């Protein structure tokens, strides 16, 4: 029996009929319902320097943000049952290192990444390590469930920012920025300002909640953040643009926090004395989600209807229409683009 799958073309991607894989010990086979396109998929689609350098095998199946149903259990799997609806936690921990044993499985030093070091889930079926299959509560519909993985990054960033009661500036209104802003509102931020150079993205943001939108091409950082009543206590950086953080950091308040989520293609140049040391500010990296604290918090916020992220889902296509989906996702015309196998 074969299955539809989308494999890397290095560059590009193509549809391919693959054999349905068999779950090994500690793994499960899932039938994929929806998979969302992530920035990582776009990097691999474009086959940029980063993608070419991380050891993705030829013909690897793309995709990692999905909702799926467990259809077969590998040997020794007791944590899941047939029919369970699950999401995939992308970071596959070794479960053995000191980080894994101290609540930091998400940054396990031996971790593998689902869909980079394994086949992914732009396919009818996928094999997932049981430790990474997260059961989805019934109240969350399939389309929202398919974006819980990136939503978790935003929740994690807002948790690291300790945003309650604070003025928060989120740099970038792509999916991660948008989710960070939504999570900041949900976790009780005093105010949230979100920036992007694309107004289409800011429009989506304004539909997700009561946040201030800021296009730095139209309003300068000093006009937006320069007064005492507007200077942020927390900056969540999701753009990977040196200019974005360099222009904003001078306005961070004393004892402020920068949650760094975005990845830069080169070094970022920061005035550490003026902006971090003299202010006793903190710059902290954020990567992925805590297993499973972030997922628990996210599900609670969704249950309480505090996380309004549905407007982020701007497009849905059949897997066969992946080219249009990738075009829309990478141009910034859409925010989250879903593909159904």
């Amino acid at each position, binding site marked *: 029996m074969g299955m539809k799958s989308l494999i890397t073309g290095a560059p590009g991607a193509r549809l391919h009929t693959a054999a349905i894989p068999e779950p090994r010990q500690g793994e499960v086979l899932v039938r994929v319902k929806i998979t969302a396109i992530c920035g990582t998929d776009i990097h691999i689609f474009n086959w940029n320097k980063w993608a070419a350098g991380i050891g993705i095998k030829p013909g690897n199946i793309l995709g990692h943000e999905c909702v799926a149903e467990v259809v077969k259990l590998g040997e020794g799997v007791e944590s899941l049952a047939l029919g369970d609806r699950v999401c995939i936690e992308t970071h596959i921990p070794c479960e053995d290192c000191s980080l894994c044993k101290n609540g930091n499985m998400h940054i396990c030093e031996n971790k593998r990444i689902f869909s980079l070091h394994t086949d992914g889930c732009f396919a009818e079926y996928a094999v997932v390590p049981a430790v990474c299959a997260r059961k989805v509560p019934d109240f969350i519909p399939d389309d929202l469930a398919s974006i819980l993985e990136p939503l978790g990054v935003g929740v994690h960033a807002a948790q690291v920012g300790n945003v309650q009661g604070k003025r928060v500036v989120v740099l970038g209104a792509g999916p991660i920025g948008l989710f960070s802003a939504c999570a900041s509102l949900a976790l009780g931020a005093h105010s949230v300002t979100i920036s992007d150079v694309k107004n289409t993205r800011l429009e989506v943001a304004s539909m997700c909640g009561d946040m201030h939108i800021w296009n730095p091409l139209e309003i300068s950082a000093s006009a937006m953040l320069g007064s005492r009543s507007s200077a942020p206590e927390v900056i969540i950086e999701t753009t990977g643009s040196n200019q974005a953080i360099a222009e904003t950091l001078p306005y961070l308040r*004393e004892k402020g926090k920068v949650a760094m989520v975005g990845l830069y293609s080169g070094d970022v*140049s920061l005035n550490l004395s003026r902006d971090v040391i003299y202010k006793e500010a*903190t710059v902290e*990296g954020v*990567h992925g989600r805590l297993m499973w604290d972030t997922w628990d918090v996210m599900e609670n916020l969704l249950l309480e209807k505090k996380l309004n992220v549905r407007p982020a889902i701007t497009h849905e296509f059949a897997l066969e229409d992946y080219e249009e989906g990738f075009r829309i996702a990478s141009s910034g015309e859409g925010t989250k683009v879903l593909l159904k196998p």
Partner: protein
Amino acid sequence: MDNVMKAVAKVRSEYGSFEVIEVPMAKSPGDHEVKIRVETVGICGTDLSIYKWTETVAREYHPVFPLIPGHEFAGIVEEVGAGVSHLKVGDKVAINPHISCGICPYCIQNRESICENRPILGCHADGGLTQYLTVRAKNVFVLPANVPIYLGSLAEPLSVTVHALERVQQKSDKAAAIVGVGTVGLLQYIACKAAGYEDIVLFGLDSDQERMELAKRMGAKTVNIEKEDPYIAFERLTGQPKADVVFEVAGTNDSITFAIDLVKTAGKVAMVGIAASYTPIDTTKVVFAEKELIGVRAYNLSTWPKTMEIIGKIVPQLELLVTHRLSLAETNKAVELLLKRQCLKVVIEPNAESLAGREGR
């Protein structure tokens, strides 16, 4: 004459311009103030910046000349104003030179280190390079009896290192690294040891050789990063590949990059050294390993009682740090020694009657 005293002042904005001048005697203390007879003043990098009159100093301090520098100082209480209960005449004391405002949002949270309106004695206002000074009693702390007064001026830089620990220390920490082996690096070592770190490794350069020898005499483990691979050395010395916490005290772009690399996944870097204007940072390392870069500035008021607690237990190490004891008239000589890196800590003793037999070690 009783109505004048000697001081060293920056008399104009040009390079150098440190001169011994006569100024009116410090006033009698008002309510909640004390008058101090200054017995020891440490000369530090900031004083050198004032000497050179760097752009930052000109922008930050904008003083009225003549300005009396000196923010690391200690002395004897000469006179006590009304409403002061914790000090008496004759007390041996160290002074916190940050005159925090007490009313800004940060002071109210006991975060005086980032007070919004905080003149620093010796920087924005007249400091310790003088014979007498009248100061707010709240900023004056009694030194333990066993601390020789000339070492009292080390309480200020020691407080910086104690505060760095307040900012980053976690109970689970075992191995600490200190990048930079100047006075602050060595004091950071002493403070880390007092704080209970099992393994502490100091990293320096060829040019720090003498300081690293001194660190070894204090019991420190040291690594010359120009001579050996610092990661292999760290693992050999501590049994773990990366540091639980790194204290970056050198403030150069290279040392900051190294500090970020050296800290473990999810570890903290205390940013103590004042960095150059812009530092390139490979943020992927910060993001993927969830590292934290934590700014450390000066200290809070509540840091100082802890410093007083520690300083009484580390007198032998502090004695090793002070290489020169000079008179007020020799302040320019002290600056020269520092500029030429021919010393470690130099202290000025403004009221020393005679300097015979006073050479430090």
